[in-house]
């Protein structure tokens, strides 16, 4: 699979080159290629790929439908299980989910390109317009509130609307989509796809989004619970883990997520001044998204530093390879110990200590090295912002088997609970299942 190349030694990239650097990383399939890839699927009975998908999409059927020329039916098969199947087709780590489970791997062959095929079916349908594919049940007369218009909240809202309820979504930001809109690399979500997807999702009807409304002040969970018949919390992990090291408050030491957001929201990325030497700290997909984008923006050197070995990185092998092919240097077994000022008073260097496992415990070796850095991006994870009223356990909102929090009628899902990996696909599944549970709750009340 050919990935869009970038221009090496980027300083002073032309605007056209920058635009190209942030365009679709993997171009969408042509109809011919889609048929060719679809023909590789064995249409397994009891297929392992379905079980590997957190949302349980009937993958063999949607691929068979691409083959049979029923593209509308294919999109329907995907979206009925995962209303954000479009984003998941682009951004899911399929290499550790459905494609890893594909039986063709066992024959030593490449797995079926499930992600690309899924993206093909969904995007063709969304681009074609026409009816929404799903119809609402008879109005229940119930009103539901959703906190957060990210994947979990919107998935909940869509399913709840389909089940006949009226939904109001409260979103702190000016746009919907959550991390799909603000937190994924631009080249994964090219052509404003996050917004197109939300527009399609809202096509079900019965969902109102109020922007600029966060929990806090008068807007408490208790107040929402009083105004609505049920509430869903899908506010993700909006606080970032702090790094308290000497110099970590220097100008130029930033959160990787903020950097990604700035890039995503910039109309013209060539207006953003690239740093010369970038150091990214962390080992997840956010770290990779930040590092690769820093390089594609024109940084001369980008080094990603992670405190353990490659195996321990939560970024998949595919993501790690993407970083390497984009000329990002992966520096393993090292942790930051301080940041140094340059003569302008901003960060100029990052000092690291080498690490090693001693008796199974990670520790510094005493040996240090310094990397020049005029931009340090921290990607060391996010946590749940403080939240009153519901039981918190292990840093996440506690829910029962029906996604209900410690407060009856208040449900939660997505990154703010611990349901699995913090992935879009998991958030969509949480939202879907929570809506079905909330529906049962409302109908039994």
């Amino acid at each position: 699979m050919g990935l869009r190349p970038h221009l090496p030694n980027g300083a002073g990239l032309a605007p056209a080159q920058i635009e190209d650097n942030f365009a679709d990383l993997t171009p969408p399939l042509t109809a011919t290629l889609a048929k060719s890839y679809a023909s590789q699927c064995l249409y397994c009975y009891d297929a392992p790929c379905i079980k590997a998908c957190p949302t349980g999409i009937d993958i063999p059927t949607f691929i068979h439908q691409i083959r049979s020329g029923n593209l509308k039916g294919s999109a329907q098969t995907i979206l009925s299980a995962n209303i954000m199947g479009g984003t998941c087709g682009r951004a899911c780590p399929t290499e550790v989910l459905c494609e890893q489970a594909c039986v063709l791997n066992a024959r030593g062959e490449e797995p079926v390109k499930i992600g690309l095929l899924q993206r093909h079916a969904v995007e063709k349908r969304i681009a074609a317009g026409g009816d929404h594919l799903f119809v609402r049940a008879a109005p229940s007369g119930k009103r539901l509130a959703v906190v957060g218009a990210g994947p979990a909240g919107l998935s909940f809202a869509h399913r709840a609307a389909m089940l006949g309820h009226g939904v109001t979504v409260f979103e702190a930001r000016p746009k919907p989509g959550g991390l799909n809109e603000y937190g994924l690399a631009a080249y994964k979500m090219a052509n404003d796809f996050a917004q197109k997807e939300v527009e399609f999702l809202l096509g079900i009807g019965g969902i109102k989004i109020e922007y600029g409304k966060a929990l806090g002040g008068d807007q408490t969970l208790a107040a929402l619970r009083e105004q609505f018949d049920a509430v869903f919390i899908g506010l993700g992990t909006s606080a970032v883990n702090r790094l308290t090291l000497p110099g970590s408050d220097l100008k130029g030491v930033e959160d990787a997520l903020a950097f990604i957001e700035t890039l995503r929201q910039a109309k013209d990325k060539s207006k953003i001044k690239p740093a010369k030497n970038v150091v990214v700290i962390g080992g997840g997909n956010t770290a990779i998204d930040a590092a690769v984008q820093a390089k594609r923006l024109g940084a001369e050197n980008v080094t990603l530093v992670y405190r353990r070995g490659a195996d321990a990185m939560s970024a998949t092998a595919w993501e790690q390879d993407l970083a390497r092919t984009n000329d990002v240097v992966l520096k393993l077994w090292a942790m930051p110990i301080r940041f140094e000022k340059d003569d302008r008073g901003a960060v100029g260097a990052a000092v690291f200590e080498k690490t090693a496992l001693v008796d199974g415990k990670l520790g510094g070796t005493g040996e240090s090295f310094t990397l020049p850095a005029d931009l340090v991006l921290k990607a060391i994870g996010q946590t749940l912002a403080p939240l009153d009223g519901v039981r918190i356990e292990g840093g996440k909102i506690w829910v029962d088997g029906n996604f209900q929090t410690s407060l009856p009628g208040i449900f939660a899902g997505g990154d703010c609970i611990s349901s699995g990996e913090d992935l879009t696909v998991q958030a969509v599944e949480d939202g879907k299942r929570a809506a079905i549970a909330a529906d049962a709750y409302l109908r039994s009340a």
Partner: protein
Amino acid sequence: MADLHCSIGGVESINPFWLASAPPTDKYINVKRAFEAGWGGVVWKTLGVDPPVVNASSRYGVHRDERGGIVGINNIELISDRPLDENLREIERLRREYPDRVIIGSLMAPIEEDAWKGLAEKILNAGVQGLELNLGCPHGMCERGMGSAVGQVPEMVEQTTRWVKTVAGKLPVFTKLTPNITDIVVPAEAARRGGADGVALINTVNSIVSVDLNSMAPTPMVDGKGTHGGYCGTAVKPIALNMVSAIARDPETAALAISAIGGITTWRDAAEFIALGAQGVQVCTAAMLYGFRIVDDMIAGLTNFMEENQYRSIGDFRGRAIRNTVDWNELNLNFDLKALIHQDKCI
């Protein structure tokens, strides 16, 4: 919203998708699963007079393309190898449990009036909505003077059809035709003369799918020897389409209902047969290869196709391609079509 409900030779069906008389329709549990999956009807695995036949093993051969994909399979399986009564009790039970689904009884008997009539009566009493005469099986049964041995002789086709129709009365009778003849219209006409309401075609094509060069015997092998078997699957679809169109186009047979069979795997295949005049379709190989669930996309795909083209019912497009299917001498020889090669698009 497009409606897939249709009438096939007078039998009302929730959709045009039936399972053909074959292994997937041989017993209660299989047919139950098929109905649960959404099939509109089944033609039960052919029943004969007791004692039941004894089958050989193995009995399937496969023809593959270069990439290993299955083009067609052949089989040397006979009719039902279970006692008649057992089959009939299961049919009765399924008719009670699934009143909105269709069960057609397929039968085959020696060329004797009493044998055909007696068997037909017993099957009718089990509550089937119609009968299908198996005059097409090209292996095993024909050597006993049944199956295609009957189907290849128009007089016998007419005679057996008449016997069964006398017993069936108002219930429809479909005569299943063998493709192993020169002109399909001839037995179709014979069936019509015998009083058939419809024809079902094609049965399987005479074939040897491969020769095992180590054992020097055709496959499938039964203890070192092989025999010709009935070929089916996507490979036979073009043959079936042509035969269906021939019957639909001939004024003598055009009034016969057609239940089309032959390599139907997707909704598109079904739509093509319907466009050439079929009232419904029957499927076997695709269900054997992929499971009963393939009917999902047949239903969804056909519905979407009909909605996109504003066809409200099957009848709105049935037979639409017949008037465009002509004899060669009716083609416009002034029409000129040449390939234009775009070198830059060549791979």
